[in-house]
């Protein structure tokens, strides 16, 4: 099982509570989150299905090898963290 958490910056736009899913790849895990909250997809992925350029997806603290390839195996990863670049200061 892998737990997916989302930045509060996304929560402001669309309700996306933490979710625990069974998945083999990053893409499969995110798809399950999108099934629960369909509006989330557009905030995380672009129309080509790639991770949007201001979004950071961490898998146990490390980044995706390629924003365009969500088939990256999760292995034994326990946590996916979806972040957004922060602008304020």
């Amino acid at each position, binding site marked *: 099982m892998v737990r997916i958490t989302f930045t509060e910056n996304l929560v402001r736009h669309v309700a996306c509570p933490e979710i625990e899913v069974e998945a083999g790849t990053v893409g499969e895990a995110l798809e399950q989150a999108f099934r629960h909250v369909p509006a989330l997809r557009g905030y995380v992925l672009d129309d080509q299905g790639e991770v949007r*350029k201001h979004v950071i997806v961490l898998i146990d603290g*490390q980044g995706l090898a390629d924003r365009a390839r969500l088939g990256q195996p999760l292995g034994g990863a326990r946590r996916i963290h979806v972040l957004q*670049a*922060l602008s304020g200061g």
Partner: protein
Amino acid sequence: MSRDERFSRQIRFAPLGRAGQERLAASTVLLVGAGALGTHLADTLVRAGIGRLLLFDRDVVEESNLQRQVLFTEAHARAGAAKAVAAAESLHAIDSRCRVEAFAEEFVPASFGQLPCRPDLILDGTDNFPTRYVLNDLAVRERIPWVYGGAVGAEGMAMAILPGHTPCLRCLIPKAPPTGEQATCETAGILAPVVQMVTAFQSAQALKILSGRHEDVARGVFVVDVWKDSYGLYLGAATRDPACASCGSAEFPALREQPPEAVKLCGRNAVQVLPDPGARIDLELLARHLRTAAAEVELSPYLLRFVAENCRFTVFRGGRALLFGVDTPERARVLYDRYVGAR
């Protein structure tokens, strides 16, 4: 009090030591932004004993800043003081030996060429991505270390960039979030503790860089949420993106873009208007003309304030203006032409 005594507790910290303190004293820092992040950074670094601070900010102090912006007072807010100038006054009272130079203007690519000296470090105290990309592209092109920081709500993020050695901001975030998706301090609020956490990380990396301890600089992105109590340093193994427009292909797109003539300030009911290049403005003369056409006309050594058509104007020497109470850049441009007219 001797400088040795003043900095004795810092010198006693072995990884910094006397040699590190001497390097700090000989260093120049370019800090862009004197808001929440910027005032904390300036306060910490001036107290730490840096030799020279070049401080840019385009904004003025407002009462709503005082909750988190440490160098300002109610008097600054009442006067609508330029943030860079007000911060420099406070910093001078903290350490009169530190050379603080205030620039009450927007930092644009051309600003770098007009600096009085080459900085050893660039620090991010800004509140917007276009300026951050300018800092990133300049830092990578000039091979000057810089430290990014951002904070909104209870969340913060920061990263040190050592050009040529670590990924740059564009490697991590190739594009800024679309305007509507960007939370700002005005729309999502901001807690002072997250500012303190982010600037603590930024300042610590700054001290390592300035004292010559590049090997000790944190690799990766510091991410914090002070409400959920989550803290971490992530992406430590990240490498530079060969396709990066800055540190990969050296296109430096932010250095080629011209700032727009009028731009709405992030999350605020205010617009910044830039004068035409080469325009000249005499604030004293303008103040005299406005005595009959506008209300609440106040002239200070750095700026002129007045109210007209339900809009509060702050006009800086050089002609740049902030218009509060205006919704669109188009309307701001019309009002600017009507009352300032520096074209």
